[in-house]
């Protein structure tokens, strides 16, 4: 229970020395290690916060880009709809034009076909009428009709217009009054004489007619004086009628 002064003093010195040694060789390295670890943690934390901020900025940037893209998409979609509407309207107009052209073409074709059928019907009816007329005139053909047609020719010669009469006179002069008279049946001397007499009076010179028989004339005569031909028979009239009906000369 006594205090040794030397031990007392040296223990104080010992403790102070130990304090200095531990402070120098133990606490300082530990504090440095703790500080280093804290700095590492703070650095990592700051880096994480920086990356978080960068990530937030990136997210915000991508969100803005997304909004821009959505707006651009909506604009493009609107433009596309407008272009599609224009294309649709143009295609519809073209289709309508084509349909109208096709309708007109079909209408024209139909009209042509109808006209053709009408023409065919007219031709058929004309030919039928011609055949019926031919049959009827064949049945009516005879001497009386020949006489009537001759009389009609002589009457018509007396009523010729001045230019035709002059042309007939020129033809008679050019052929010395010789002419051909074709009939369906033999004309007979009396009728031939009447005709020659009427012609001679008309052209003012003696006319001599040579008679021929052409059964296809059916009834009546055909008088040929040079380049002038006078028809007064059923066969030539039917032929004229047939040509006029078919469009020929």
């Amino acid at each position, binding site marked *: *229970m*006594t*205090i*040794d002064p*030397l*031990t*007392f*003093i*040296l*223990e*104080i010195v*010992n*403790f*102070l*020395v*130990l*304090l200095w*040694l*531990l*402070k120098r*060789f*133990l*606490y300082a*390295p*530990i*504090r*440095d*290690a*703790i500080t280093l*670890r804290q700095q590492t943690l703070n650095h990592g934390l700051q880096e994480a916060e920086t990356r978080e901020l960068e990530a937030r900025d990136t997210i915000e940037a991508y969100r803005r880009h997304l909004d821009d893209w959505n707006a651009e998409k909506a604009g493009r979609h609107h433009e596309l709809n407008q272009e599609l509407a224009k294309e649709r309207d143009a295609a519809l107009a073209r289709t309508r034009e084509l349909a109208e052209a096709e309708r007109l073409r079909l209408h024209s074709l139909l009209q042509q076909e109808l006209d053709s059928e009408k023409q065919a019907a007219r031709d058929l009816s004309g030919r039928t009428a011609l055949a019926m007329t031919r049959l009827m005139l064949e049945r009516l053909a005879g001497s009386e009709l020949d006489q009537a047609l001759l009389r009609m020719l002589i009457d018509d010669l007396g009523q010729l217009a001045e230019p035709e009469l002059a042309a007939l006179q020129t033809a008679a002069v050019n052929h010395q009054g010789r002419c051909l008279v074709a009939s369906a049946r033999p004309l007979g001397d009396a009728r031939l004489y009447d005709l020659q007499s009427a012609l001679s009076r008309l052209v003012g010179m003696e006319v001599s007619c040579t008679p021929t028989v052409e059964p296809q004339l059916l009834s009546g005569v055909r008088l040929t004086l040079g380049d002038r031909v006078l028809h007064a028979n059923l066969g030539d009239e039917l032929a004229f009628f047939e040509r006029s009906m078919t469009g020929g000369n």
Partner: protein
Amino acid sequence: MNETPLFLGHFSLSQSLVTTWAMMAVLLAASWLLARQLGKPSSLGRVAAETVYTMMENAVRDVVPHSYVEVTPFIATLWIFLFTANLTGLIPGLHSPTADLSVTAALAVVVFLSVHWFAIRSLGLRAHLRHYLSPSPILLPFHLISEITRTLALAIRLFGNIMSLEMAALLVLLVAGFLVPVPLLMLHVVEALIQAYIFGVLALLYIGSGLESLEKQKSDQRNPS
């Protein structure tokens, strides 16, 4: 204590003194080895050292939050020294230096001086001496008596506890043989830890009381409300 003093020239060195030197050498070697472990990022020694030091630093910071950087090495050295010294008694043939009143008295004086050292360094001599007159100059004698008694109490408490612990262990060893004292030796470890902790905490509280006005002033500056 049955000691055989060593002689260095004309001076007789007590066993406590020699044991303390040996203990200091061991602590210095351990510090050197531990410092080498601190270079490795995840070594067990580094984690243990950082953990223990952080615990001690947090304990000091709870009492002196604005001066813990300066006070922590002193308190930590007290804890390490006392814990090691208290455990030295477990080694056969050796006695705990803290079972020697000269050692505990020296440590108590060191704590007494450290209280004034930290207070004067932080507050200044006039401010430190003024606190003996507050709240009333009448209390000055009581302050002075308190300074003396608490220093004596520090020295006597540690000396008495460790000496009695060693004597009890010795008696049980003599009476009951070698196996029975094992639980008592475990109690010795716990007691060594507790006594070191109590001594350190009391020293910390004394230093804290010396720095009280400074801590209050800095707390007020940090939290004006």
